[in-house]
């Protein structure tokens, strides 16, 4: 075991360095204002307080932005998951003309710099009269999470043996029943992993929120709301850190749940 002392020490040190910013975020959110301003910052506090959280939630209406972000992300997860499931089944369970072409298109779609599409999408959303609505954000993320969702789910559908469906068919199950009663529950774990990706994409979106939600502050989402705390003269770092914690926690929870499948889903070539 002694030959592992050196690599273990290195690994532990790196782990501490990597985790430090997260630790510092949580710590600073809990520090009283005086300690944030102090000339000698220390990596601990003996007077943890929820002042910053209170200020963020009450004065700045952060709870509302949190709910807005949640509504958008959950709507995207539901819509994207359902539609991607149907498409993934079609692309794995059937052989038809242009199937490979479609697959390649789904792959290429993931590479499209969607940031560049903000310009035409801004006009599209404006013409729909949907600027300043949460609906506009749901719509664009629905479209942008689909290609990756289809691509990931494809692998999970393919992993289900054909025989199960064939047996069900012999037992007289309709195609509809096979799809929802048999395939859907079996793909559920993969759907969970895919959902996390869709959730994170929608939850982290800064660009579209900034572009579409121009004047309706009540429809602002978290990333943009964070910027409210940056002031030209004196940033409210305690508030910024508390808001950042609130924004990071849901993602961390989701991530821990599906991290195992994440890898196999992302790296299609890695066979577990």
């Amino acid at each position, binding site marked *: 075991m002694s030959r592992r002392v050196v690599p273990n020490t290195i690994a532990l040190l790196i782990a501490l360095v990597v985790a430090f910013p997260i630790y510092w975020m949580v710590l600073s959110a809990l520090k009283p204002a005086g300690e944030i301003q102090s000339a000698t910052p220390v990596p601990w506090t003996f007077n943890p307080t929820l002042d910053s959280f209170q200020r963020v939630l009450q004065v700045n209406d952060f709870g509302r932005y949190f709910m807005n972000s949640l509504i958008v992300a959950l709507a995207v997860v539901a819509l994207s998951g359902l539609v991607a499931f149907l498409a993934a089944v079609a692309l794995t369970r059937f052989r038809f003309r242009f199937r490979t072409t479609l697959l390649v298109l789904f792959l290429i779609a993931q590479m499209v710099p969607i940031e560049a599409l903000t310009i035409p999408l801004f006009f599209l959303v404006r013409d729909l009269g949907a600027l300043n609505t949460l609906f506009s954000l749901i719509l664009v993320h629905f479209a942008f999470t689909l290609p990756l969702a289809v691509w990931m789910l494809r692998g999970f559908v393919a992993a289900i043996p054909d025989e199960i469906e064939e047996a069900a*068919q012999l037992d007289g199950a309709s195609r509809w029943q096979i799809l929802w009663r048999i395939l859907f529950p079996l793909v559920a774990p993969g759907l969970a992993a895919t959902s996390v990706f869709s959730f994170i994409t929608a939850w982290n979106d800064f660009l579209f929120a900034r572009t579409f939600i121009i004047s309706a502050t009540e429809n602002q989402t978290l990333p943009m709301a964070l910027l409210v705390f940056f002031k030209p003269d004196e940033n409210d770092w305690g508030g910024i850190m508390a808001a950042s914690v609130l924004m990071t926690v849901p993602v961390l929870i989701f991530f821990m749940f599906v991290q195992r499948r994440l890898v196999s889903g992302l790296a299609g070539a890695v066979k577990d």
Partner: protein
Amino acid sequence: MTAIDAGPAVAGRARPRTRRQFAPLWMLLPAAAVLVPLFVYPIYQLGLLSVLDFRQAQVSGGQPTRFIGLDNYAELMSAPKFWSVLWATVVFAAALVVVTLAVGAALAVLLTKVSRWAAIALSLAAMAAWAAPAMTGSTVWMFLFDTNLGLVNRVLGWEGHNWTYERFSAFALVGAVVVWHSFPFVMVTLYAGIKALPEQVLEAAQLDGAGPWRSFWSVTVPMLRPVIAIVVIQSIIWDFKIFTQIYVMTNGGGIAGQNLTLNVYAYQQAFASSEYGLGSAIGVVMMLILLAVTLVYLRMLRRSGEPL
């Protein structure tokens, strides 16, 4: 109904063929109904806008939209600013890819050499960094490197040093955040790849007298090629499109636009200067560069024999 698969033949099972043709169609319809108007059409629109004279006057309908051919592109090509931004984007992305891969690969190998508890500690820390939203990662690092209250300046005794004032140090700071966010994906993926390698091959190499260094470069790396390809391409694509970190940390592209990348530049041209045609042209340039990268990726996939 003909299968045009280039991949290996599907196990020939006679399936009932009744109404088969229509099933995939209706299952793909919902996806098409979303992607065509919200994905395909905007791409076409982007191309269209890039060949139009489209500014504030045209948006408000005060002036008719004019077709100006490749004038927007000509204007870009003759602007030194565009070339410096393009150059900065390529160098910045390349540096990020190299550093992310080096860090991720080194730590993946480290994971194979440590005890279980150390591996778990490192994996958890990496997961936290990976999961942190780009926005909050940016704010925390900004706080750590803040001019007056930042921990880093306090520890170094550099009170008053502004990290985003200098072009290079601002890029370096944003780069550090991006690497912190993205090395975990590389580490975890490569580690999974190494784990999946057959033990016997490495043992055989050892028996043939190959040292750890030699067997790593001559056995492990070649066998991991498909995984490495995925990680490299993903990194290139992500790092080329960095937006949030640049925008937030350098306040929209840095002092006098010194930290602009193509992405942010296109956005600023369109929404800050109302030069929608010019911004779209920059977007098209970006799209073409990434398309080229994607095509290389597809060729690699085909070579490694991954059936689609």
